[in-house]
């Protein structure tokens, strides 16, 4: 176990009535990392954040930062601070008073804390709004005040609970870049909770996917996109087709799975006769009017076409089950498909991906 | 001597207040719970003592210790044929009638003002504060001013049916802000799209009001009326100088306490009014609980369509 960074070891949180919100969480976060907790609502990601922030205590397990045990330490005493969902700004205090609050609580004298607060406000680009009240600011500006209020106390890690949830889409995109840039500049650990896959993929050094109270997978955005570990992650990350079946044979680093959709071959190893599942990214699926090949191909009907701007997402129907493909416009033009037409979907062996059972 | 009492009171009050200010919630909670219980005793204690003393025997006194507890003597006394008791019963009858009329008027006025404030209009702010002003006007002043007005126009106070007009008027003014706030809270939670749909389908504004709006808010109107009833039943200072010979129960009680030798029938009378008031509160709670349950059920059945509501409203508005 590392003695630098934030370490969660065997962390459980069971609420009264035997409701397990967080189960068996083991995670090491290095200093300066941008970590995103990703998962559907009720998956335990916010509870985990609250455990780290000290707003809740784990039922068992330990949380340490730089080797220092955090269990039982009050939120105020922890070297981590939270940027709350909906910002939780003090509505009766000005931007400056909001930002200097933490320093005031530490007992710092007025000139020193004003100086530091001013610097933090400058850092988030709100110098012109210093004396305004939160209600006189836009959503994005309020978000920055919340950030400055936390930065000024120089925590070892900043916890952000759905920080972009209240913003409209365009502003979200802008703030993603800004947040990421700020984190690089400061070198502070950011732990960010969201249910938005795109947001997680675009911001994180590493993503922690949570589902049903446990960590489903930890990995870089590329790892998660390319190699989802199990069906939950594959489905949650979106645009993955998951096929189930029985392993027919395994040879040469590949296995062949017999599915109701036909035979598929994927890299990996397994024992014949066991159950096997595989995932294939929508963007790795190709469509054509050719005949169906023996492996890695299905005959599907085109249900409807979704234009995404830079690519086209095809919602396909395989005997009543949905199947997704993402192709570029050029390819789509070549196939001359229309809604209702039958086409063949194929993919190459190395794009398929064997899932853990 | 009295300063000592003030000092004791102050010291007692500083304890819960500083516990609330300086201790974390889990530590201040038991202190505040204790204070809350003392507060309940403070609020209900006098009434309880009065209640106990009303069950004394014929030789019961106005103060402790109670004599021959367990008797209904002072309640049966209320039915005596003495001129005093006849007056008291007459007061009760008058109070009930006045309250009933006030309830109806409060309901109608609250409903119409509630409807008015559903959209912005010029002078709305002034009207709003005028409604609230009645909440903040001491009853005696209202009574005084109205008696001047009556004197000025040569009105004979308390004579005939006409004598009830100022009494009812001033009591409805007192109840109006309460009823109005009830209606405001009803309309704040109220979904106007049903009305818009009715208008879309060709209903006139009157038909819409009768067929759609009223059935949806009648419990609020009923609540406003109930406020009117209860407040009128207990009101006294506002009618004090304008009632003439029309003595409603609270007026009669005031006259009794300030003139005659008091006997425990005053307490039994108090108990009777308390029981009536609490029955009215219970009625109000039952009605709002029933409508609350209906709404909860409706939401449960409705499922998750809530997210689409804004877009529907927008569509309805643009189609106008």
């Amino acid at each position: 176990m590392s003695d630098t960074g934030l370490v969660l070891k065997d962390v459980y949180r069971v609420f009264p009535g035997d409701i397990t919100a967080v189960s068996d969480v083991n995670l090491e976060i290095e200093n300066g990392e941008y970590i995103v907790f990703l998962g559907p609502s009720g998956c335990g990601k916010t509870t985990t954040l609250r455990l780290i922030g000290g707003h809740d205590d784990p039922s068992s397990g330990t949380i340490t930062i730089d080797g220092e045990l955090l269990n039982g330490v009050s939120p105020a005493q922890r070297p981590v601070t939270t940027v709350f969902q909906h910002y939780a700004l003090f509505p009766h205090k000005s931007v400056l008073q909001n930002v200097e609050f933490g320093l005031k609580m530490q007992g710092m004298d007025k000139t020193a804390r004003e100086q530091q607060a001013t610097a933090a406000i400058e850092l988030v680009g709100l110098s012109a709004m210093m004396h305004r009240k939160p209600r006189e600011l836009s959503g994005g500006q309020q978000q920055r005040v919340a950030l400055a209020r936390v930065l000024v106390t120089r925590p070892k890690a900043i916890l952000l609970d759905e920080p972009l949830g209240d913003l409209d889409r365009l502003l979200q995109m802008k703030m993603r870049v800004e947040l990421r840039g700020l984190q690089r500049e400061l070198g502070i650990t950011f732990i960010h909770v969201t249910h938005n896959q795109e947001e997680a993929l675009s911001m994180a050094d590493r993503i922690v996917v949570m589902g049903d109270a446990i960590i489903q997978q930890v990995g870089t955005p590329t790892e998660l996109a390319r190699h989802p570990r199990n069906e939950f992650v594959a489905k949650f990350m979106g645009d993955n087709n998951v096929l189930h079946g029985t392993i027919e044979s395994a040879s040469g680093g590949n296995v062949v799975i017999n599915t109701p959709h036909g035979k598929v071959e994927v890299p990996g190893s397994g024992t014949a006769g066991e159950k096997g599942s595989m995932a294939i990214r929508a963007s790795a699926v190709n469509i054509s009017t050719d005949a169906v090949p023996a492996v890695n191909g299905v005959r599907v009907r085109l249900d409807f076409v979704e234009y995404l701007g830079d690519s086209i997402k095809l919602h396909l129907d395989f005997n009543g089950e949905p199947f997704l493909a993402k192709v570029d416009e050029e390819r789509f033009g070549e196939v001359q498909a229309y809604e209702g037409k039958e086409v063949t979907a194929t993919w190459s062996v190395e794009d398929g991906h064997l899932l853990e059972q | 001597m009295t300063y000592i009492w003030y000092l004791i009171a102050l010291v007692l009050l500083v304890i819960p207040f500083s516990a609330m200010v300086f201790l974390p919630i889990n530590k201040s909670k038991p202190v505040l719970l204790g204070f809350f219980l003392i507060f309940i005793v403070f609020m209900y204690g006098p009434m309880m003592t009065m209640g106990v003393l009303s069950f004394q025997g014929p030789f019961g006194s106005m103060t402790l210790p109670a004599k021959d507890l367990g008797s209904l003597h002072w309640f049966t006394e209320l039915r005596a044929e003495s001129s005093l008791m006849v007056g008291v019963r007459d007061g009760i009858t008058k109070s009930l009638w006045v309250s009933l009329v006030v309830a109806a008027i409060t309901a109608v006025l609250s409903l119409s003002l509630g409807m008015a404030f559903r959209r912005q209009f010029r002078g709305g702010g002034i009207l709003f504060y005028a409604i609230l002003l009645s909440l903040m006007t001491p009853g005696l002043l209202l009574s005084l001013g109205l008696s001047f007005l009556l004197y000025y126009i040569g009105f004979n106070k308390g004579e005939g049916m006409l004598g009830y007009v100022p009494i009812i008027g001033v009591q409805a003014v007192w109840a109006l802000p309460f009823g109005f706030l009830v209606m405001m809270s009803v309309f704040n939670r109220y979904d106007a799209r049903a009305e818009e749909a009715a208008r879309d389908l060709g209903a006139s504004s009157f038909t819409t009001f009768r067929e759609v709006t009223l059935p949806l808010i009648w419990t609020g109107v009923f609540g406003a009326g109930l406020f009117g009833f209860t407040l009128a039943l207990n009101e006294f200072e506002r009618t004090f100088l304008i009632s003439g010979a029309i003595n409603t129960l609270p007026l009669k009680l005031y006259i009794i306490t300030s003139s005659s030798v008091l006997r425990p029938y005053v307490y039994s009378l108090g108990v009777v009014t308390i029981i009536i008031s609490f029955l009215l509160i219970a009625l109000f709670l039952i009605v709002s609980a029933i409508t609350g349950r209906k709404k909860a059920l409706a939401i449960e059945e409705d499922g998750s369509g809530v997210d689409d509501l804004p877009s529907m409203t927008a569509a309805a508005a643009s189609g106008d």
Partner: protein
Amino acid sequence: MGGSSAVVATTGPRRSPLTTVAWILPGTIWLLLFLIAPLVMIILVSLWERTPVGFAAFSFSLDAYGRIFETSVFLDTLKNTIFRSLLVTALCILIGYPIAFYLARCVKTIKFQIALFIVVLAPFWVAYVVRIIAWLPVLGRQGVINYFLVEVLGVVDEPISALFYSTFAITLALVQLYVLFMVTPIFFQLATLDEAAIEAARDLGATPGKVFREVIFPLSLPGVLIGCIFVFVLVMGEFATVRIIGGGTIQSVGTLVNDYYTIPDLPAAAAAATMLVAVMTVGVAILLRFSKIREVV
């Protein structure tokens, strides 16, 4: 209540100006007739001359004010009434705030919260005269308090006769009668407080005392203010409590107004009432001013 943004629900469908007028009219007439006109009348009558049974309309003079300020009685009573109102208001804050705080922040489930709030509020619906009368057996010479002091605790040998018919008794009864006007607005303010702002303050290192001083109290101030206005104004205009519990030996401006009325000297009653309104208005203005200053700082 309060800000003008809360004034309009804006949930209604479009309507014609005529409909608006129709909805406004009955209530407006009612308020003009039974609220505004009486208040205007008080000021007018205070400026008119006295006749043996009433007043002569539109005969302007300031004699009524001369009569009430002839002796020091009125001014002394006014001072006492102001002092009593301030005292009762202060006591109502000291009692009402912790009660509202307990209800809003210590009671966990909403159901329980509503139930307790109803229990607290129920006495408001009991006839006001009855609530005053209910103090008779408690504060009297042989009342509950004396009974405890003499018989149970034995701390005093003789019953304290000063309990009833004293300013302390009046203060106690007034606090009990009006404290609900303080509890209710503070409760609503505290119950709708942004929980996350409090958590954020704690997260940033605020002690319980600091959280209260920096976040909870400033945010609940509008409720305290509304409560103060209610209690101050209503106690200033008090009459029945002082008369029944004070037993005719203690005066308030309200009882003086009533006395002038029974003489009858209607213009003097009106002048006294006008002075009362003036003091109340100044008091409310100071409170509102105080709140504005707080908001700027």
